């Protein structure tokens, strides 16, 4: 059996899956002050009458990291940067940077050496910092200087945790690596404590199975590995719903999915049965990071979205004022409109009608106000979808062929999941003139996604055959080889070996079989009029995805 838990903004859900069937599901309000309480409650609910020892895998998506960042409950980070020549990042990154000498250029050649004395001096100033981060420009082309400085920081500052920029990403983008490394260290302590509490709570309930944490890219990480890269656990809620859709219904046609929860609707785009990824990474508090994530957009429309009149004009969301009146709340919400319009049949119809009467104009009936509310809510979601499609169409490309032959993304199906989907998603589909689908189990899609998600990881290998070495920054590897005797085929073979190595180190050796090529680039190096070598880049990943398709009978909703 697989246990999946999703800690959402409004509800914490759990499911048990056996042989591809959801056999139990439970829901409880999210306890913001202590996330653990809600998690424990929902586990106890879903495990009623179940032998916990039969669980062979538990996976969790949590807002602990996101909340810690939003609420500012993070640690001060000693931030060491080797920026070399280029952009002055002061003011563009969270935290206070400490600049050091040393520079590696775009081909991974050392141009200036770092200085130990500088590091020692900075460390003396930062004695009260318990966590640190080190990031060097072009370290993905040669991680040596970043490693050297890390050794010195460990020697002079002895932090409890230190994050390297190359550890969080093997891709170019120094700014994003700095931000990722910074946040990773900033949330390290709070995440470690949460992880320990979860481990203890599961052990108390005789759950001895390995525990995984969901990542923003929809993959999972063993909890023990996640402790060193907690920044990967941001934005896992939307990722869980995407995985849930993958498990419940894998769309073959280009599709749009909407996860319509209590507070927000999260939009994702699908092609060839896979969600599209964000080109560079997720944003945290307006700072771009290198955390790989799905291409998602969130809009403030959900079942609990507050409905009111402002200067005579109807307004819906983006804030919520507790649950809908139909569910015992104090303010009118979208759910009330859905109830009055007859699109859902739970909640108190009388209270819902009162809610709609409160927002109705003098000449309007409650039902008319309800439909006006729903049209507006659907239009807001539609607008966000259109913006996202326009953004997708405007994405830059760097080759002639891609521009001349590239076709724009054109959706053919809309999939709705989440509490508010059954009422609202068909209205959005109608406005977008698309057929729609609401898979059975959509109410707990996030928990299903968490339960079924596969472990993932990726590596980047870059070879420079003129210089005769390749690097795998995520593993800190610099490997020399005979100059010019290295082919793209060799690069892929080496990448496969290193991916398996990284998977094994992360406790997911068996997953290495599901690898796929993410990116390939090969350039001839010409100097004078001679080809003196090649520059190759290969990115290989264990494919994000689900362990198996999951079904759920409507009766269990």
């Amino acid at each position, binding site marked *: 059996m697989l246990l999946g838990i999703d800690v959402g903004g409004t509800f914490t859900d759990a499911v048990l899956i056996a042989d591809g069937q959801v056999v139990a599901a439970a829901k409880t309000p999210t306890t913001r002050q202590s996330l653990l309480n809600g998690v424990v409650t929902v586990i106890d609910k879903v495990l009623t009458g179940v032998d916990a020892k039969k669980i062979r895998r538990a996976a969790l998506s949590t807002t602990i990291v996101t909340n810690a960042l939003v609420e500012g409950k993070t640690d001060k980070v000693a931030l060491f940067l080797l920026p070399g020549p*280029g952009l002055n990042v002061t003011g563009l990154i969270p935290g206070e940077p400490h600049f050091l000498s040393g520079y590696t250029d775009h081909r991974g050649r050392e141009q200036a050496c770092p200085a130990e004395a500088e590091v020692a001096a900075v460390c003396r100033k930062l004695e009260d910092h318990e966590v640190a981060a080190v990031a060097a420009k072009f370290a993905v082309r040669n991680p040596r200087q970043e490693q050297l400085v890390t050794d010195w920081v460990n020697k002079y500052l002895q932090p409890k945790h230190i994050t390297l920029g190359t550890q969080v990403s093997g891709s170019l983008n120094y700014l994003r690596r700095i931000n990722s490394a910074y946040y990773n260290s900033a949330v390290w302590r709070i995440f470690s404590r949460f992880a320990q509490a979860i481990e203890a709570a599961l052990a108390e309930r005789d759950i001895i199975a390995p525990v995984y944490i969901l990542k923003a890219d929809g993959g999972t990480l063993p909890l023990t590995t996640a402790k060193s890269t907690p920044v990967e656990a941001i934005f896992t809620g939307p990722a869980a719903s995407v995985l849930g859709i993958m498990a419940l219904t894998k769309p073959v046609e280009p599709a749009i999915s909407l996860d319509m929860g209590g507070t927000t609707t999260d939009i994702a785009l699908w092609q060839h049965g896979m969600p599209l990824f964000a080109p560079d990474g997720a944003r945290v508090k307006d700072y771009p990071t290198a955390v790989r994530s799905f291409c998602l957009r969130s809009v403030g429309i959900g079942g609990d979205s507050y409905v009111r009149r402002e200067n005579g004009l109807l307004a819906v969301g983006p804030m919520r004022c507790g649950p809908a009146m139909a569910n015992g709340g104090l303010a009118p919400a979208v759910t009330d409109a859905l109830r009055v319009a007859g699109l859902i049949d739970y909640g108190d119809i009388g209270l819902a009608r009162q809610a709609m009467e409160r927002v109705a104009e003098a000449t309007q009936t409650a039902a008319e106000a309800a439909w006006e509310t729903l049209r507006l809510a659907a239009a807001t979601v539609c607008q966000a979808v259109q913006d996202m499609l326009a953004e997708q169409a405007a994405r830059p490309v760097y080759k002639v062929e891609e521009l001349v032959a590239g076709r724009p993304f054109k959706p053919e199906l809309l999939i709705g999941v989440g509490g508010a989907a059954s009422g609202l998603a068909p209205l959005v589909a109608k406005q977008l003139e698309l057929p729609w689908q609401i898979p059975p189990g959509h109410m707990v899609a996030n928990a299903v996604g968490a339960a079924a998600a596969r472990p993932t990881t990726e590596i980047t290998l870059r070879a420079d055959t003129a210089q005769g070495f390749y690097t795998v920054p995520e593993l800190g590897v610099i490997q020399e080889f005979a100059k010019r005797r290295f082919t793209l085929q060799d690069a892929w073979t080496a990448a496969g070996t290193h991916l398996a190595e990284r998977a094994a180190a992360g406790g997911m050796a068996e997953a290495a079989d599901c690898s796929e090529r993410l990116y390939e680039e090969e350039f001839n190096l010409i100097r004078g009029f001679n080809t003196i070598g090649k520059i190759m880049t290969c990115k290989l990943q264990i494919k994000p995805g689900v362990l198996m398709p999951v079904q759920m009978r409507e009766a269990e909703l």
Partner: protein
Amino acid sequence: MKAASLGLVFFPAFDWAITPTHPEREERLLYTRDQIVEEGLLDLPAIKEYRPQLAGLADIERVHIGVPNIESLITDAHLLSAGGAIAAAQAVMRREVTNAFALVRPPGHHAMRVVHGTRGFCTINIEAVMVEYLRRHYGVQRIAIVDTDVHHGDGTQDIFYHDPDTLFISFHQDGRTLYPGTGAMSELGSPGAFCSTVNIPLPPGTTDAGLHEVLDRLVLPMLEDFRPDMIINSAGQDNHYSDPLANMAVTAQGYARLAEKLKADIAVLEGGYSIEDALPYVNTGIILAMAGLDYSRVIEPDNARCPRQSVATTNYIAKLVAEWQDIWQGRDRLRREAVAKAGGWWQQRRNIYYDDSGIQERQTETVRLCPRCHGYQLIDTQAQGYPFGMKSAFAAIIPRNSCPACRAQARDAVHKARQAGRHDCCFIQDKQEDILVPCGT
């Protein structure tokens, strides 16, 4: 006040090259891409990235006369490069950004009005296509083009040589020491547009100091006098000390400061072939300067090897500047004299060599100086080269504001040429009707 923001069209054309080992090849903007992406420039709120578009043939033919036609001489990459410049212009005109930089390839400033093939790595003039697009679609009239490439922008000069609404300023390594050999001070525009072409040939070894001397004492004051509606920068990066095709000594800081002072509305990449040691730093510096960001830390790792400017060079530049100041002060008088001397007609005969295509062209250009309008131009061209042997064409160019008499005369000249049957193709490029009409023979 709204903070400065830069629209960036980055199109490295990673799958296009003139030939595999040509300086203008797939690898050319690879290290620039690495630097831009590594710096995280595309994530900065002050920088917005735009995708290029395919320019239409009508956009190209508004400027060029291709012989026998332009389609057979270009690839999609050319349309995308010109379309990248247009996308940059649109972003500025729609006020989505305060200025824009089209970091695209292939380049264009050696492409002249008549095109028989590729010369100086250029087939179509992407700035000129953009300028005429701005005029056609946005009604922008007075435009200044400052060509900061190390090579003389002979193609752009040719296209705007008779247009008093376009001020073309090119500073470059002296043509006596570098391709394409033109760009002497004496090339000042035809009489009707006298002194709207400004050539500042600089001695080899000119540094940041020399360049900024020319900028501060000549270029910026000239721009102030001309009062353009828009400033375009033909941003070649080959004045850099490490460029393999030229002999100047400008640094990334020199270029960034230039971009900051010039305040171009749109910059379009031209040359620059030190792809590894210069382009990543120069382009980063220009992007930061145009976006109003701190560029003071953009310094090449090997900056120490940049030569110093000799005293002789400093003195030479001072003299050049003084001479140009005199011409510029007297430009109205000089123009009246040139028009009076020419009478109604002005003519030049030229040999034009297409280094990339191995084509030798002989061209006679006849300009009608009309007291009522901008007149018209007639071009008689004959080209010899592999694989076509010989080809010839006759064309009339009717500018935007031509009077009925000039229109009729220009058309008449083409019809006569067609009847004479000595040319393979005849064309009327009618800027008023915005059309290029091929006339069969």
